[in-house]
């Protein structure tokens, strides 16, 4: 959604800043697709938004709400002179936030992960209040709900379909060989996840009374400022139970730590210190972690030829290793959920 303007911009290219925001750009620099613009009043992040404008307004409103509630994990949105959260210039949509990143987010260090999960807990806790306050405004986003078990089952069907497709002839590449070799265990994992989801009472739609979620944990959209993790882009938000965010966060960064059980335990503990999860949501976490999302993704990318097969084979092999570590870790998580139930 956030696309970088051309890399060759100078401060003069931000001539719209003084008129819209009353900010005078002195210098600018592009970092991870975002312009860091130095003004007399400090550094600001200028982001171009390429998505649906209708989604931008609630995202920035939510971000402002969190910042106003004292959440240090999101930068506050700078309003235009007219009191708007964003502005249009030459047909493009921009919004400006305070520059909040002092240090790059490094998911290889446990400290950064703990800091990120701490702020995630804070965001989720405060978001409940936001949902209560803005119930009417969020209702329209609840309208077209996704029936998760059905959608997940379709993903599994696609995995089987791909497997049948490549087995109907001789295997052509190493990707197909590795996929065919591992399809059954991954399909079983998917079925197991679905069963857990249904047993946990999530047979219907997931975003039941959902709250806004960060829904994106790209390393480039995260940073650290004085040992506090910062989420700099909330425009990919979605509605749903917080376990969805937690699952995405863990699936994104725990492979780097070989799904270290003690680290996962610490992360969950830190999260729950800031936002205690009801047992029902805890039981949702395990199936969301277990479902073979990327196994499906790589097959799709291979079939669409959007990625190089050799690179996909390496990714798939790495994912298979990860899954082994993850399953060991999930065994301990199963116990964690059960203990809480008692």
């Amino acid at each position, binding site marked *: 959604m956030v696309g970088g303007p051309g890399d060759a911009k100078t401060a003069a290219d931000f001539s719209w800043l003084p008129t819209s925001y009353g900010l005078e750009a002195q210098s600018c620099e592009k970092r991870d697709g975002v312009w860091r613009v130095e003004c007399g009043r400090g550094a600001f992040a200028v982001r171009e938004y390429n*998505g649906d404008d209708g*989604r931008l307004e*609630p995202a920035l409103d939510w971000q402002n709400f969190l910042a106003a509630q004292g959440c240090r994990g999101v930068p506050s949105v700078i309003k235009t002179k007219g009191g708007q959260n964003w502005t249009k210039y030459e047909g493009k949509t921009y919004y400006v936030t305070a520059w909040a990143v002092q240090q790059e987010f490094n998911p290889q260090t446990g400290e950064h992960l703990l800091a990120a999960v701490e702020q995630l807990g804070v965001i989720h806790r405060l978001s409940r209040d936001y949902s209560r306050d803005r119930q009417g405004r969020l209702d329209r*986003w*609840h*309208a*077209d*709900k*996704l029936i998760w078990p059905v*959608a997940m089952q*379709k993903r599994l*069907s*696609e995995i089987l*379909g*791909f497997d*049948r*497709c490549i087995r109907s002839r*001789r295997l*052509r*590449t*190493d990707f197909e*060989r*590795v996929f*065919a*070799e*591992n399809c059954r*265990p991954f399909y079983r994992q998917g079925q197991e996840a679905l069963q857990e989801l249904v047993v946990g009472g999530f047979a219907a739609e*997931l*975003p039941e009374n959902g709250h806004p979620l960060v*829904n*994106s*944990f*790209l390393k480039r959209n995260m940073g650290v400022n004085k040992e506090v993790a910062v989420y700099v882009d909330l425009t990919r*938000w*979605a*509605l*749903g139970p917080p376990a969805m965010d937690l699952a*995405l966060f863990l*699936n*994104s*960064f725990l*492979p*780097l730590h*070989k799904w270290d059980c003690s680290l996962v335990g610490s992360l969950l503990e830190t999260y729950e210190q800031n936002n205690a999860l009801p047992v029902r949501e805890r039981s949702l976490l395990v199936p969301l972690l277990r479902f073979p*999302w*990327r196994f*499906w*993704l790589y097959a*799709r990318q291979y*079939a669409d*030829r959007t990625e190089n*097969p*050799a690179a996909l084979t*390496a*990714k798939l092999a*790495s*994912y298979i*290793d*990860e899954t*082994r570590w993850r399953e060991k870790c999930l065994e301990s998580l199963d116990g964690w959920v059960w203990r809480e139930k008692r």
Partner: protein
Amino acid sequence: MIEKIETCELALEEAGYPWQAVEGDGVTWLLLRRKNNTAPNRISGLDRVVLERFTWDILAREEKRTVYAGSLAVAVRYFGPGAAEEGALTAADEDENLCRELFAGAEPGGRQPRLQTGFEFSEEPPEEETSFPSIVLDAVEEAPHSREIKTGCGTECWRTELVWKAVLSGEGVAAPPRLVKLHLAQLGLYTLLLEAAIRLETMPEQAGAHRGGGEFLAVPRKTTALLLKGEEILEVLGIAQQRGFFAALVDDENRNAAITNLLKTTLVYVSARKGGERLLAASHVCAEESRLPWSSALEFPPSSYSCKMEHLKTMQPDAGRIICETRVWRSANHEYPPTKPKQANTLAAAHSKSALEKMEVNRLDRKKPGDKWRKKTAPYPVDNRKDKLVISIRMRHRQ
């Protein structure tokens, strides 16, 4: 005399597990296959294959069929996970986030994404050379100290025994089975594939010598080009031919007889393509016709037909084409068993009599309605009408 070159386009046969048999006249190829999954331990390379034992026995022998049973014990040495390098740990944030986006759609609340139940390739991916190793070995002698194989540092050993049974059809003396090729390959991260090709054959016999009666006539030499599209043949192991569905059409006017039959030609070969099964079979079925000169014996349909194929030459001009030159010896046999008509008549009469008796018994067993209430002491044969008691009752009228 050399006839024109006939072209046969072969179709690859599906590789069967745990065995695939290719039967021909006088030769049978048995392709044994076994997979071993080493998960969760990755395979990082292949070391070697040691043949520990190859034994066989003849279970039964008929005039034209020999049934074999045997076993093949092999030790496979490969490099285990100790020597394997695990891929560098990488963050999965980009891919995981992409999964979430594609799954839930861009809309908050998650609009139902467009999902398809099937799976279609936008374009078939091109074939790529595999990075997984593959070793093809010629028939290896039994290792004298094979039982002493010890796994070295980082190497693992997979011992397996492939038990087999096979039927060899054809005239002649059965030769000892031969283990012709062994193939070991890594398929994927955890899978080892072992293939073995065993050849069973009858000893070459003098052409024309025949025990079943009839006269063998050589059909002129035939040169056939066997084409196998989309495949690279590394080595031809053998060609098996099987004939069936014989029929004869005699032409009294032209004084000849056309013998037609179906012919299945199967090529057993080593594929040059790594990354899967490499000891493979490809076959082609076609109709075959040959003309025999008229003889008085052809006044009646032959009792059986015989064919013997003689391979004269096999060449491989390129990776997907085999040229083979063959000569076929054909015969139509006219010896009907039993040969003496008198004996046949006696047999037929005996057969008819026994059948009639059987029918009689069946008829006697059947009870008449009301039989149950009749006098048991005086049974009468139901079907012999001469002995049937006839009761006449004279009615008198009183005046």
